């Protein structure tokens, strides 16, 4: 990213914002799908049972904490790797 001038940086910035939104959307959809897949297995009723609902709530909490933790480790590792020259994170 070092070679960009001010206007190029603004353009990139604006695309980054779109990507952030898309990233958030993906995270959101993944959450819905995974918590649904893991917690809902009974189709004798069309509304969530209290057991299913509890599972979904804990699933959301736990997965958010999990991604947050992974995100922190990822940034540390990525910063460390930025020097080493491997592909991602440059």
């Amino acid at each position, binding site marked *: 990213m070092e070679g960009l001038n001010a206007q190029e940086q603004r353009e990139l910035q604006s695309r980054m914002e779109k990507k952030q939104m898309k990233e958030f959307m993906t995270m959101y959809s993944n959450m819905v799908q995974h918590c649904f897949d893991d*917690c809902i297995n009974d189709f004798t009723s069309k509304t969530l049972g209290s057991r299913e609902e509890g599972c*979904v709530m804990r699933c959301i909490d736990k997965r958010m904490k999990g991604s947050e933790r*992974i995100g*922190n480790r990822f940034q540390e590792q990525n910063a460390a790797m930025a020097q080493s020259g491997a592909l991602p994170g440059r």
Partner: protein
Amino acid sequence: MASLFGRRPQPSSAEKIAAAEAEIDLVSDMFNRLVQSCTKKCIPSDYRESDLNKGESVCLDRCVAKFFEVNVKVSEKMQGQAAAGGAGGGGMFGM
């Protein structure tokens, strides 16, 4: 979501179109995931008949309803967390 940042007085055409597009993309992505999850849960993969039988049909209907309920839970919970200062979530961009 864009309104969370509240920076710009008047969104441009491009911005309004981008927001409408993002919304459509989210709904479309959700629909694809819904098809994937409910097909897996309700339709056995041996495909003995071409038609959906009664049990499969009812299962799909209930599955869609429950998927929407889970979606609402996730939506409420994440809006709650965002309002509370947005601790959780993580993600690469620290959202």
